[in-house]
């Protein structure tokens, strides 16, 4: 009985997350519209919110087509891997001190990093299995980008771990008497930049790059398989935003309001910031992307760890 209830609860959380991703697609189009002197989709339902449902229905009702030059198994598996890895990461995300599936897990942060690496596999396999040169180029770019930005991302997170002395997300939030954005401003900036690159969203959308690679790694995808990639991207965006709120902005800590409302507010603000970035910045050239990752972010992240470790050691000694 208990197991059944848990399964039901997990199903509900999954559905809520999927609905959230669908809503984010719509919200992004709307916000981008307002930032670009347009209105965005505003026809279906109040404020146009039915557009999310219409998009989902359209994707689900399309034919699941496998090109005859594609590798059938990997082609089918890759989108599922992407959506799966993004969804599973949310298991360790706490909404509140007591409201999470595995928020107390002592390797929560590590688990998220592992899942984001799995996400990279999904993107790469999807591009490779499509048997299309644009997809392949997108996949190669995705791998190079994800590898080079996972490093500064992990190193920036190491600063947080050093300060809080915990890898579980509950523990990290509990340790934040002052938000870590104050103690780790450099780490915060590095984490945000690398996070945007990890989710390969604009301005770091080189794996997709409509203007150069048609649609990059998902050129050959359509219907719900494309939908999985889409869901994975928006779930990844949500994940990075939630992580930013948890690790740097103090999580559920906040005056007056209940904790989970603070979580929603902080996450929403970060997501709006991502939309804003997308509306503003152009895509960098590929070598610029690599140079930023290896020549600027990585040394800065190392410096950040060095300074944090030094300060922590001094604090402990003195």
């Amino acid at each position, binding site marked *: 009985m208990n197991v059944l209830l848990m399964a039901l609860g997990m199903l509900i959380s999954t559905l809520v997350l999927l609905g959230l991703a669908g809503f984010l697609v719509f919200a992004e189009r709307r916000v981008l519209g*307002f*930032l*670009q*002197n*347009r*209105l965005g989709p*505003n026809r279906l339902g109040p404020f146009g919110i039915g557009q999310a449902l219409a998009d989902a229905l359209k994707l689900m009702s399309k034919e699941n087509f496998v090109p005859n030059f594609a590798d059938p198994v990997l082609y089918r598996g890759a989108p599922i891997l992407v959506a799966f890895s993004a969804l599973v990461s949310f298991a360790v995300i706490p909404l509140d001190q007591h409201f999470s599936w595995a928020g107390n897990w002592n390797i929560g942060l590590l688990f998220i990093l592992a899942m984001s690496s799995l996400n990279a596999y999904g993107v790469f396999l999807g591009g490779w299995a499509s048997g299309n040169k644009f997809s392949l180029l997108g996949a190669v770019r995705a791998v190079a980008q994800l590898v080079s930005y996972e490093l500064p991302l992990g190193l920036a997170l190491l600063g947080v771990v050093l300060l809080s002395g915990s890898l579980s997300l509950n523990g990290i939030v509990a340790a934040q008497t002052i938000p870590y954005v104050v103690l780790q401003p450099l780490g915060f900036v590095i984490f945000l930049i690398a996070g945007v690159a990890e989710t390969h969203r604009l301005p770091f959308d080189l794996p997709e790059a409509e203007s150069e690679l048609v649609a990059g790694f998902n050129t050959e995808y359509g219907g719900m398989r494309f939908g999985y990639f889409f869901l994975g991207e928006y779930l990844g965006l949500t994940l990075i935003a939630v992580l930013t709120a948890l690790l740097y902005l103090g999580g559920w800590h906040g005056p007056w309001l209940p904790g989970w409302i603070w979580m929603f507010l902080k996450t929403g603000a970060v997501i709006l910031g991502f939309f*804003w*970035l997308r*509306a*503003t*910045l152009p895509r960098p050239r590929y070598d610029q992307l690599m140079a930023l990752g290896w020549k*600027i972010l990585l040394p800065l992240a190392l410096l950040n760890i060095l300074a944090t470790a030094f300060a922590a050691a001094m604090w402990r000694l003195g």
Partner: protein
Amino acid sequence: MSAWRGVVQIGVGLWTTLRQLGRTSTISYPEVALQLPPRWRGRPVLTRDPDGDERCVACQLCSAVCPTRCIELQAGERADERRYPVSFRINFSRCIYCGLCEEACPTLAIQLLDEFAFSKEHHADFVYEKEALLIDGTGKHPHYNFYRHSGVALSNKDKGAGLNEKAPVNVRSNLP
């Protein structure tokens, strides 16, 4: 140094996009009426003169000038010797709304007014006959009546009897 400049420029860019919030230039067209320019070229119509008669004299100039050959008409003559189109047909699935027919018309009969949104299911429905083209108003030129200025003799009016018209001159008496 250049990295610092880059950061500043990203900030400037973000501020530029943020300032655009709420400055929507989209017009929600079916709900909000469009403000069409006064010289907008919409669907051609046939207008009437201030007295309520048809302005068209069936001179065929519009048909001749039409680059897509979408105007077809047949001329006829009334009992008072005034010419009129017996039939007038415009195929709007070919019309490109260039306005050359309006420019060519000597009597200001054919005019491109402001109707622009019309769609049909079949091409055949786009062929408009004279009954559909002829409107009851004067269009853009409320006071113009070709026959009052033309110098053409009609059964109820002699040459030179119109507005701003002088009596005909005998050209032989006019020689130097």
